[in-house]
C-alpha cells in the first residue's frame, strides 16, 4: 500500500465515521427512520475490503453505508436515501438497508440475514460463464453463518469453483446475542474449511484487511475457486440506532473501543507513511465538508411524488 492509497483509505474511513454520526443525528431529529445500522468501529474492514476488491461485484447486508460510499456511491445520494428522498440511490424506496448501484456493481442492502449470499453465488456463476476475470465479493456478519443460505452457498460455490470471495465480518454479535450461544466455536471460517481456502485477519486494521482481501482475490484469479476471509471486528454502537446496547458491559465496550480502527490507522499514517498532522487535518476537513453537503443535499431533496408508489413494480405494466 502506498501513501496515496493510505490517505484515500483514511479519507474514506473518516468520511464513513462522520457520515454515520450524521446519520444518527438525523435519525434523532426524525429525518431518518426505520432501521439504521451503523458501521462505527468497523470502518477499517468496510473500507479496506472495498478498496482492495476494486473490480468485480459486491453484495452486502443492511449495514452497508460505508461500503457503498467506499465503492463510489455519492455520499449525498446515500444520505438522501436515508432521508427517503427522491434523489436517494434507491429513489427513497429502499432506505438505509437497501442501497443499490448496479453501475458500480454494488448490490448492497439486503435485509434478510444471509439472503444475499445465494444471490452472490448466482452472480459469480454468471461471471464465470461470461468469462469475466473479476469475481464477486459477498459480505455478511457472523450471525449469517448459521443459516441454511450460507451453507448451501459454500457447497455450491465449491462445487463449481466459483470466483467468489466470502467475507465474514465477525463482530461476535447478532443483535444482542453473543456468538457463543449460537455456534460451537468463535471462528466461523472453520465452517468453510471443508470447502475452500480460508484466511483470517484483524478487521480493525485497515492495511491488514486490504492485504488479505488482495491475497484472496489473487487466489480466486489463480483459479483456486472460492475463498473465505474472516475478519474479526467490533461494532461500537448498538445493533441499530434503536438498540440500547445494554447487553455489553462497560468493560467489554472499553476493550472494544480501545481498538478504534481510525485511531490505529491515523497512527500508522503519521508514523509509517510520514503524513503530517496538517495533511490529515485537511483530509478530515474534506470528509466533514462532504458529509455536511450530503446532509444539506438530503434535506433539500424532494419527496418522491405520489405516482412513485406504483412505479417499478415491474419493468412493463400489463
Amino acid at each position: 500500500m502506498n501513501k496515496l492509497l493510505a490517505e484515500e483509505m483514511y479519507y474514506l474511513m473518516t468520511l464513513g465515521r462522520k457520515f454515520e454520526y450524521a446519520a444518527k443525528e438525523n435519525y434523532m431529529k426524525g429525518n431518518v427512520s426505520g432501521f439504521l445500522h451503523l458501521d462505527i468501529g468497523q470502518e477499517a474492514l468496510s473500507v479496506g475490503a472495498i478498496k482492495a476488491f476494486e473490480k468485480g461485484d459486491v453484495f452486502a447486508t443492511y449495514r452497508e453505508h460505508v461500503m457503498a460510499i467506499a465503492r463510489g456511491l455519492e455520499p449525498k445520494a446515500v444520505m438522501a436515501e436515508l432521508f427517503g428522498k427522491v434523489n436517494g440511490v434507491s429513489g427513497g424506496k429502499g432506505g438505509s438497508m437497501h442501497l443499490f448501484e448496479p453501475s458500480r456493481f454494488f448490490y448492497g442492502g439486503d435485509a434478510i440475514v444471509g439472503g444475499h449470499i445465494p444471490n452472490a453465488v448466482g452472480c459469480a456463476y454468471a461471471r464465470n460463464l461470461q468469462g469475466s476475470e473479476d469475481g464477486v465479493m459477498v459480505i455478511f456478519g457472523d450471525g449469517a453463518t448459521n443459516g441454511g443460505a450460507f451453507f448451501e452457498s459454500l457447497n455450491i460455490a465449491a462445487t463449481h469453483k466459483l470466483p467468489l470471495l466470502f467475507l465474514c465480518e465477525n463482530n461476535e454479535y447478532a443483535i444482542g446475542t453473543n456468538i457463543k450461544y449460537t455456534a460451537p466455536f468463535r471462528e466461523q471460517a472453520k465452517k468453510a474449511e471443508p470447502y475452500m481456502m480460508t484466511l483470517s485477519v484483524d478487521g480493525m486494521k485497515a492495511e491488514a484487511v486490504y492485504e488479505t482481501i488482495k491475497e484472496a482475490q489473487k487466489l480466486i484469479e489463480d483459479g483456486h475457486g472460492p475463498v473465505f476471509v474472516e475478519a474479526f471486528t467490533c461494532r461500537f454502537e448498538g445493533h441499530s440506532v434503536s438498540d440500547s446496547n445494554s447487553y455489553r458491559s462497560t468493560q467489554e465496550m472499553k476493550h472494544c473501543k480501545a481498538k478504534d480502527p481510525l485511531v490505529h490507522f491515523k497512527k500508522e499514517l503519521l508514523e509509517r507513511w510520514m503524513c503530517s498532522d496538517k495533511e490529515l487535518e485537511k483530509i478530515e476537513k474534506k470528509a466533514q465538508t462532504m458529509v455536511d453537503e450530503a446532509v444539506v443535499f438530503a434535506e433539500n431533496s424532494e419527496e418522491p411524488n405520489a405516482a412513485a408508489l406504483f412505479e417499478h413494480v415491474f419493468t412493463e405494466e400489463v
Partner: protein
Amino acid sequence: MLYREALNKALDEVMEIDDTVVTLGEDVGLYGGAFRVTEGLVEKYGEKRVIDTPIAELSIVGNAVGMAIGGLRPVAEIMTGNFSLLAFDQIINHMAKLHYMSNGKITLPMVVRFPQGVSKQLAAQHSESYEQMLSSVPGLKVLSVNDINYAYHAFKYAILSNDPFVFIEHELLYNKKGEVNFAQQLDPFKARIVKEGENITIISYLKMVDDVMQSVSAIESALNCSCEVIDLCSLNPIDYDTLAISIKKTSRAIMVEEDHKTGGFGSQVIAWVAEEMFYTLDAPPLRLGGTDTPIAYNRTLELASIPTPDSIAQDIIAWGKKNDV
C-alpha cells in the same frame, strides 16, 4: 398492562405450571426478545427452556416440531413475519401435516408466533403480512389478535392446546395499553363485536381494527348510519356464525385489512359473504386493503400503500354514497 406484557404474562404463567413448555427464537433470552415479549423469562426458567437460537428460521420451526414430537410444548418466536418465509417448509409441510399424515399418531402441541405488518419505514423486507398464506393451510389454527385481553387468553389457550397454532401479532400493537380480565373464560375462536351497529358490518382483525374504530364516527356522520365493527380474532377457523348474524342485521359487509388487496385474507371472507349471504346483501361488499406494491421506505409512500383511518373513512363514505347507504 401493555399488549406485549399480556403475552409475556401468559407465557410466564404457562411456563410456571408446565415445565414442558419452552420458548425459542432469536434474542428471546438475555435480550428479552426483539419486542420484549420474552423479557425476564430466561432469568426465571433458565437457558434450557428459554432458548436463544441462531438466525435459522427453518430450524426454529423445524426444531419446535421435533420438540413437540419429543414431548415438549414449544413456543417458537420468529422475529418478523417476513423471516417466516424461510420456515414455510417446516410450517406447511411438517407442522401442519404430521398429525394428519400419521393418522393422528403424532400430535404437535406447539405455537409459532411472530409480529408482522407495516411499522414505520422498515421497508419491503420487514413490513409484509402473511396471514392469507398461513390461514389457508389445512392443519394450522391461526389466531391474530387485536385486543389485549383476548391476546392473553388466546395465547394461553394456544400454548396449552394439542394442535399447532400460528399466532400472528403486529409490531405496532405491542405498546398498546389495556386491561386483562384474568378470570374470564374466553373462546379464542369467537369473533369479537367491538362496536354494535345497524347498517354496515365492518370486519377486520389485528391492527386494522383500531384504524377502523378511528374512522367510524366520520363514516357514521357522513352516511347517517351506524356501523357494527367485528374483530375476527381467529383467522382459521373463521367464526362465520357471528358474521352471518351481523350481516343479516345490516345487509352490508365491508372487509378492512392491511395486506396487499389482491389475494389478501379478506378475499376469503368476502367470497364467503358473496356465496353464503348473497340474498341478504343490499349493496356490493367492499374490500379495503393495501396497494399491490412492495412496501416503500419513504413514509408518505408507505402510508399511501395501506389503509389509514382517513382512507378507510373516505373509501367507505364513497362506497356508501354510491350504493345508497
